[in-house]
């Protein structure tokens, strides 16, 4: 049952809505009939008219990424009805915090080791003889 004016099959949205798929259907480039699950997900969370309105407010060249993002968010919400993709954002923020803490600890350890190495290097170069310092080794980059 089928066709749009050009004889091609209806897009997933028009099939879902049981209507004719016009040639300028806003859904058809982004919700092909080969992937009905894609439209089912966005329809379940946002509804067809909201999706159409959102796509209409975006320049045509950006509608593809927008449809992908809407699909991703809809799937996240279906999988996690309470937090949706906001759960992923929370998890990522926690990881950033934990990784940042780990990095700070390691940098502190490296700084500690580096300062210890420098002190030992300086100790090898100079010994006190009476009241004078005597240079034992010539180290080009040692600065007093």
């Amino acid at each position, binding site marked *: 049952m089928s066709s749009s004016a050009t004889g091609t099959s209806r897009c997933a949205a028009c099939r879902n809505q049981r209507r004719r798929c016009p040639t300028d259907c806003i859904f058809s480039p982004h919700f092909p009939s080969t992937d009905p699950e894609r439209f089912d997900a966005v329809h379940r*969370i*946002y*509804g067809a*008219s*909201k999706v159409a309105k*959102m796509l209409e*407010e*975006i320049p045509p060249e*950006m509608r593809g*990424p*927008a449809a*992908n*993002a*809407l699909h*991703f*968010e809809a*799937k*996240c*919400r279906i*999988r996690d*009805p*309470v*937090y*949706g*993709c*906001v*759960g*992923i*954002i929370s*998890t*990522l*923020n926690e*990881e*950033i915090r*934990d*990784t*940042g803490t*780990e*990095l700070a*600890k*390691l*940098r502190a*350890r*490296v700084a500690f*080791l*580096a300062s*210890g*190495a420098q002190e030992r290097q300086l100790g090898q170069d100079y010994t006190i003889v009476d009241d004078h310092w005597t240079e034992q080794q010539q180290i080009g980059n040692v600065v007093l």
Partner: protein
Amino acid sequence: MASSSSSSGGYSGSPCAACKFLRRKCLPDCIFGPYFPPEEPQKFANVHKIFGASNVSKLLNEVLPHQREDTVNSLAYEAETRIKDPVYGCVGAISVLQRQIMRLQKELDVTNADLVRYACREMPGIPMSGAGGHPSLMNAPYYGKGSGDLRPNPDIYYPRRYDRDGNYTGEQDGGDEE
């Protein structure tokens, strides 16, 4: 008859933000009442623009009552993010955070390499690959027990990865903490 119960808005007799927006009577058992107080009209306006009132009502009915507040807050966050970024919405925020994690992980790798270098200098007899339990290396990402092999240190936290469908794909490298 509106009562002063929490189910009909924040104040006695005052309709909730949803019923005000929808221009309808706010009943005592209004599902939106506890979560869309009249003093936050923009919250419902945003959620309505992106999801629509009936979809929100459906979502709230699908979750347990004690989960509804978190559900509404996450919907409000998603709606606000999508209004600010109509193309990518929350997906844009996720991309930014994932790039940040990758950058931090690279810095972690560099710092770990520095740590191994300094620690091995302290014990000149030990080859780079086998630090044999030296305290400086206890938190290095690869920690061998003197046998010369490098094994991932399970105590290091590795960031998670999510694929295009929002599925967790495991850490980038090394052990799994859970």
